[in-house]
């Protein structure tokens, strides 16, 4: 039952799923299962979303909220990747570093990113620092773990060849472990980006003036559920775009490899 579906069939089924979802949604309203202010109808959400592009809410139009969020995301996620990937690779190469970092890391990584909110605010403030820390807390573990596993799973032949060629530690990490681990690293970045982006709303609970999380929180206190949902929709859509961009990077990096 795993044969590949034709493209037309794929789109037909996708459409079917979407329509079924919308039908249940409308039905819930038409049968008065939820009051209008608790559950806006899909077309109302869409119209609100379009409206948010030119009508400011919580002080900014949608694009500005989104840019503020993306800026924080880029900081937190970029930091997670820049620290996590090299550290993971080095832990995969140097046993002593693995022994130093692993116990600490393993006990910290199960703490939900949002749990860092109080300390993030206290240590780094509510501007750019606090939210960055929370997104970092979400994105960092997968970046590190996948780089580490990728480095650990490198084919021993490549390591033997490198040592035979007299290649030192630094070049072995950057020119053997890193390229060999790219598929695993990219998978980690995708998970990390997803978790980081998801931590965003939590991060922006502590930011007063802008961002998608802030927009949703402010809409909630105004009981504007259509705005809440429009914000959710926008967050989801941008998340998909981020994922697609990372996969593009992977294709680019792996274009010389055997399929």
């Amino acid at each position, binding site marked *: 039952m795993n044969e590949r579906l034709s493209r037309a069939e794929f789109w037909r089924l996708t459409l079917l799923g979407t329509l079924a979802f919308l039908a249940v949604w409308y039905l819930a309203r038409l049968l008065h299962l939820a009051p209008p202010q608790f559950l806006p109808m899909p077309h109302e959400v869409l119209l609100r979303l379009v409206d948010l592009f030119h009508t400011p809410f919580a002080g900014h139009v949608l694009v500005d909220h989104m840019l503020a969020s993306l800026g924080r995301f880029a900081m937190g996620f970029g930091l997670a990747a820049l620290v996590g990937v090299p550290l993971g690779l080095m832990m995969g190469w140097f046993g002593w570093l693995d022994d130093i970092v692993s116990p600490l890391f393993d006990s910290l990584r199960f703490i939900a990113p949002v749990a860092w909110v109080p300390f993030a605010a206290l240590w780094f403030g509510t501007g750019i620092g606090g939210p960055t820390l929370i997104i970092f807390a979400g994105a960092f573990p997968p970046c590190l773990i996948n780089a580490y596993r990728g480095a650990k799973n490198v084919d021993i*032949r*490549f390591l*033997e*060849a*490198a*040592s*035979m*060629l*007299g*290649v*030192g530690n630094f*070049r072995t990490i950057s*020119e*053997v472990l890193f*390229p*060999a681990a*790219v598929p695993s690293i990219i998978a980690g970045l995708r998970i990390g980006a997803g978790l980081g982006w998801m931590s965003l709303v939590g991060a922006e609970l502590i930011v007063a003036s802008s961002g998608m999380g802030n927009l949703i929180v402010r809409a909630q206190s105004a009981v504007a559920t259509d705005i809440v949902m429009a914000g959710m929709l926008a967050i989801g859509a941008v998340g998909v775009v981020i994922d697609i961009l990372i996969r593009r990077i992977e294709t680019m990096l792996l274009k*010389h*490899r*055997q399929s």
Partner: protein
Amino acid sequence: MATIEFTDVSRVFQRDGKDFLTLDNINLTVKDQEFVAIVGPSGCGKTTCMRMAAGLEFPTGGTVKVNGVVVKAPGPDRAVVFQQFALFPWKSVYENIDFGLRSKGIALEQRQQVIAGYIDLMNLKGYESAYPHQLSGGMQQRVAIARAYALDPQVLLMDEPFGALDAQTRVVMQEELVKLARKNPRTVLFITHAVEEAVYLADRVVVMTSRPGKIKEILDVKTIREQENWDRHAKIEDVMDLESFVHLRTRIWKSLREEHAGTDH
């Protein structure tokens, strides 16, 4: 001067709390610029011998010395050509050959010269920027041999380098290696299970017993090759037709057959 000395080398490995002897009392000296081939039934530990000279594995008894120094780690003075090539798939042909040279800290200009030389010698011209997966098996192994020779190692270790190639490619590679080895003599330890290959390439052929691997006999090929002037023939099939070649090959073949018979029952 580069020599490889195996002195009373044995190797035991443990499985399920039991000791298994895989190599038993190996004594062998590969002289400077000598080409020695080791043949033996599969599992006799011949590859382990090569890996111990490379520093990728270690004996549990006895010593392995290269140039009189006990081998402790791999290094570019002992270049290895692996059976599965072990080229880096993310590096081009040029970068694969260059990787070891860069690590030796050789200046760019000199590296370019050396690489160009071996690319020429190994018939890889025009493929400098190709990636390994775009090449045939024979070409990949030529890159691996170029990578090893480019290091200018004192010792070359080859582990069934042509084992993964088809018969025609193999013959071409054997002829090329003979040319290369005569032009560029190095101390070579060559592991193979193909008797003809060993006789064609080597100065001496070491025949090993089945496990636990011991040295059964060592045959001098070089004296016969020089007496009978095999090198006047450019093609391997002409050499293989010579009576002196056939005689040697059959002798080693019979010796190995006894070992196979020993493991069969």
